[in-house]
Structure formats: structure tokens, C-alpha cells
């Protein structure tokens, strides 16, 4: 059994590599921002409780 070799597919699928890596950085970036915001929010709430 021999496999078909289509070198052109490498170039045409580079699009998926670009979009995939961009998307994963964006998603992780959003998660980082949400986590930082969550942490800050929780700290502010805790500080308010302590002040009371």
C-alpha cells in the first residue's frame, strides 16, 4: 500500500496553522484577562469585608 504525496497541501493548509495559533492565543488571552479581573474583584470584595 503506497500513500499519495501532495506537497501542495502543506502550503494550502498553512492557513489553518495561522488561524489556529491566532485563535488559541486570543482565547488564552481572554482567559488570562478574565482570571486577572476575577482575582482583583475577589480581592476588592475581601478587602471591603475586612474594612467592615
Amino acid at each position, binding site marked *: 500500500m503506497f500513500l499519495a504525496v501532495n506537497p501542495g497541501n502543506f502550503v494550502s*493548509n498553512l492557513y489553518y496553522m495561522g488561524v489556529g495559533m491566532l485563535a488559541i492565543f486570543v482565547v488564552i488571552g481572554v482567559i488570562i484577562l478574565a482570571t486577572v479581573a*476575577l482575582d482583583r474583584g475577589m480581592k476588592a470584595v475581601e478587602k471591603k469585608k475586612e474594612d467592615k
Partner: protein
Amino acid sequence: MEILYENLLQMDWKYLVMWAIGGLLIYLAIKKDMEPTLLLPIGFGTILVNIPNSGAITQAGSEEAGALTTLFDMGIANELFPLILFIGIGAMIDFGPLLSNPKLMIFGAAAQFGIFFTLCLASIFFDINDAASIAIIGAADGPTAIVVANKLNSQYLGPIMVAAYSYMALVPIIQPPVIKLLTTKKERMIRMDYEGKEVSKTTKILFPIIITIVAGIVAPSSVSLIGFLMFGNLIRECGVLNSLSETAQKVLANLITIFLGITIASQMTADKFLNPSTLLILGLGLFAFIFDTAGGVLFAKFLNLFMKKKINPMIGAAGISAFPMSGRIVHKMGLKEDPQNFLLMHSIGVNVSGQIASVIAGGLILNFFM
């Protein structure tokens, strides 16, 4: 008398090769302690299904259903086993190190480079759905590999699963040479301070919910993957389901693992496994793994160009899903260069982010090709 040796006459060299492969997997599991919970059942199952006319699998033209074929249809073809296993894995993960330094998550994203690069490379030899399924081996995440390959109807499910689990076990052999090749001794000796910030319980509870919503919106196909993982983590962190958390971590995970391994073996029949494409899949899987490691390390080196306080680039390599092996290896390599260099908390944080990022990468691939 003929009935005693009738089946023996159907023996073929291919069955013997598969028995040897099964034996090798059992040997690696027992003697080398390489992912024994999976390689042992897969190894034994490989022998089981490669006995001529094995009743463990449904034979072509036979109406009698084999037990392993039934288990495959019930647990893997519908992705039930890997998803349930994810509940157990989620319950085992402590996101604490990551939450105390969320910026580390970016390395989890960078270390998915190998998956997407291998996708392009594999598409030279395979159709796009098979190429995507092969590329996800680089995630070093067995359940994700099973779900993606299944949803994309890959015909190479057996070799993909074996490669995914074998390479997870081979992390201590594969990663160190790649890391050494891409870093200088000076870089490997960079010390990183750890400020163990306290993370509130509410943050730990809300984190899995936020991840599920964000990842689910971007890659809805992955919402079951990430959702089950985060559900397991929510059970762990909520503080009121300790008994369920313990069951998910131990009993549930063990039970599913027993069935998962031996059911995967139902795809390890000689006719499906012994062909040139299997070797190519194993090679491409290794390639994905190496480039994931390289992606993480090179990204850390790139960031160092702009940062005052340098990062030890080795921690980038921990951005794969093989948890906690990868994080520990980076820590050990740091100690080897400088006995006072403790990278564990950083590398484990990156390693946990790799778990999340690899599931998101799997979801994105499903979004592209389903």
C-alpha cells in the same frame, strides 16, 4: 480432531508481529513503568484481538458481536469513555499555581504550535481529517486525541491512540534533548522567583466556569471536552462534594481506564495496524510532540528579548498536556544546571495551562474540519 488445529492453520505472520507488539507494550508497561495503566491493557488487548477468528471482536460476515467491539461502540465511538475520564482528570488538577500567576497560561498556547504545524505536514500524505487527527497526537492528551479522531471519522484511530499514549509515557526521553538543543546553559540557569499568592476559594470555583464559557463560545465543538474537564475541577474545588471528588479522582478514573485501554486495543488488528501509514503516523506524532516542545521554548526565548526580568525558557516546554510529567522534567533539568534553581511551581503552572490549551486546540481543529 480437526477442530483442535483448524484455527491454527489460519495463523499468519501478521498475527505473530501483532503478538510481539502487544508483548512489547506489556514489557514497557511493567518493566519500564511507561503509562502502565494504559499500555498494559492495550498490549494485552492487542494479543486478544489478533488471535485468528478472535471472538473478542466482531468478525466480518459474522452476526455474533464481539465484547470489545460492543465496548468500542458503547464507549469510544460515542466518545463516552474519554469524556468521563476527563471528569476524573479535572478532579485531579489543582489550578492553584496557574491562578497565582495567570500570565503563565500564554506558554500553554505557544506549545500548541506542533499540532498545527504537523497538521500541514500530515496533509501532504493524508486527507485533511486524518491529518488533523494525527496532528492532535502532539497535544499529549489521550482523551482529546480519541475524541478528535472519532469525530473526524479517522480510519487510523488505533495507531493514533497508541501513539498518543506512548508519547505521553516517553516525555522524559523526548523533551530533554529538544530543550537542551534550543537553550544555552546560561538560559537554563535563569532563576525565577516564585511569589506564592493566595488564591481565594471563590476564584477557584469561578475559574472552571469561566473557562467553559470562554472556550465554549469560541470552539463550541470542544465544549463537551472542556466542560467535562472543568466539571471535574468544579467538583474538586466547590468544597461540598469531597466524596464525589475522591470518587472521580480514583474509582471513576480507574474504572474507565481499565475499559479504555482494552477497548482501544480492538482497533489494533493486524489488517488495520500493519501498513506503511502506521509508521508514518508514529513518525508524525513524534514530530508534533517535538515541535510543541520547541514552540514553547522558542516563544519564551522570544519574550525574553523584550523582558527586563528574564524567563527560564525551559518552562515553555511544559506547555503540553502531559501532566505532571512535563512540569517535573523541566524542574529536574533546572536543578541539574543549578541545585538552587526551583522552577517547579512555574513549570507546573505552565503544564496545567497546557492541559487547557490542548483541549482548546482540539476544539479549534474540530471547528475547522467538522
